[in-house]
């Protein structure tokens, strides 16, 4: 009788262990999938920022012949771009990106004063490309933040929070934008 009782208890403990390990594996895999999505979202932001750097020289090239009296604005855009490309660390990067967005906004405001430029097919195409790229940057950041929220929520809610630390997962930081950047950039030429 006693022997049978111990057997049952052992089996129960073994069953519980198998369940626990299985849960651990599933949790680990789910967290890895979420973290990969988050890292991929971060990489997407970089891809779009780089796209913007690549578009700006083209825009400056097309616009500069028309804008002999506005060299100052063009220089500012070129310098802001160079500063953003070479920025080190997230804080400096964010500052440089903000400066670049501001400079572009100024340039587009100036373009408004040149009817020939506004009608120029190349300028229109570049404007649309830059508009699209600005949107993509904004949406990529939004998706990154959504991914961070999903990852952190999973990490911090019971029962995952019990083992998340043991498995080496830490909460990720949100991407914060300052208010200047949240204002829409006006690049509509219609």
């Amino acid at each position, binding site marked *: 009788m006693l022997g049978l009782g111990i057997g049952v208890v052992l089996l129960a403990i073994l069953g519980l262990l198998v369940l626990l390990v299985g849960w651990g594996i599933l949790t680990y895999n789910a967290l890895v999938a979420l973290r990969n999505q988050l890292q991929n979202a971060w990489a997407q932001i970089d891809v779009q920022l780089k796209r913007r750097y690549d578009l700006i020289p083209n825009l400056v090239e097309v616009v500069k012949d028309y804008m002999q009296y506005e060299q100052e604005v063009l220089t500012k855009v070129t310098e802001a771009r160079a500063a953003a490309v070479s920025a080190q660390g997230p804080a400096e990067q964010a500052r440089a990106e903000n400066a670049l967005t501001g400079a572009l906004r100024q340039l587009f405001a100036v373009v408004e004063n040149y009817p020939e430029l506004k009608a120029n097919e190349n300028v229109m195409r570049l404007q649309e490309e830059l*508009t699209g790229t*600005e*949107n993509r940057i*904004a949406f*990529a950041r*939004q998706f990154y933040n*959504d991914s961070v*929220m999903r990852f952190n929520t999973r990490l911090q809610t019971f029962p995952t929070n019990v083992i998340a630390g043991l498995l080496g997962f830490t909460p990720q930081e949100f991407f914060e934008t300052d208010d200047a*950047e*949240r204002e829409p950039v006006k690049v509509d030429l219609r």
Partner: protein
Amino acid sequence: METRGLYGEIAANRRRSLLLVFSLSALLGAFGAALGTLYGHSGAGLVVAIAVAIALLLTTWYGGASMTLAASSARPAEPARDQVRLNVVQEMAIAAGMPVPEVYVIEDSAPNAFATGRDPDHAVVAVTTGLQEKLDRDELQGVIAHELAHVRNYDIRYTTLVAVTVGAIVLLADFALRRMWWSGPTRSRNRDASGPLILIAVLVAVLAPLSARLLQAAVSRKRETLADLGSAQMTRYPEALARALEKIEADPEVLEAANRATAPLYIVNPIKSFEKRAAGLLRSHPPTEERVRLLRGLVLPGGAQPGQESPDRVS
């Protein structure tokens, strides 16, 4: 919208859709058997119905998207002519964290759009040229996001499958009616079938097309609402979609390329006279005013309130 809730809704939607495809297949089988009974071969009718269903499903799975696009006379988008359309689709794909679908363009001044394909990796979004002419960029984003939500929710797969199954039932019904018209159920071959059985068969034959349409419409309306919410989640700017829906609804132009079969796919039913006349149960879309009211009532986490300017978007 709460994220967990959204993913739960997607899973529930997939289960509902699977159930729908099963019930429609069963309906098709029963219909085939009923027709067979009328002509004295209940077994043969069932076999033919199943064979038709399998052939249709396979064709739809691999060729449904291209057939739908061909039926709507859509052409692939080109970077030179369709710059804005391609850009907006890519922007919304990034917002949804999805692969970028193929983009097709329908040369028609009536504003409308639909999505098709079998899963997010094989998806197509089609827009009319009128959509871009009549909507601003924010509104265009809202509409495209609605279509991408259909893709993400796996609506495209089931809408196409269901459209084909319902089509098959209606086709068979047409065929049977025509045969009855010309020759009538042949009495000689009917000798072995008893009276009540024939009565049931007639009843099923008459009711099957109608119940298929009812089922299709019910699931479709639920999906449209879900896709509207998905769009709001992607753009964080439901007001733009609300405005777009109003504009599309108010537009007097008729989309030439749409027909009864493809109508449920579009963001707003293109066959307006049908939608106006149809009783509530047969509508494939909820009334536009209802959708607009839902969108305007949304309060999104993270700031953006309906009616405000879009927060960090370039328009």
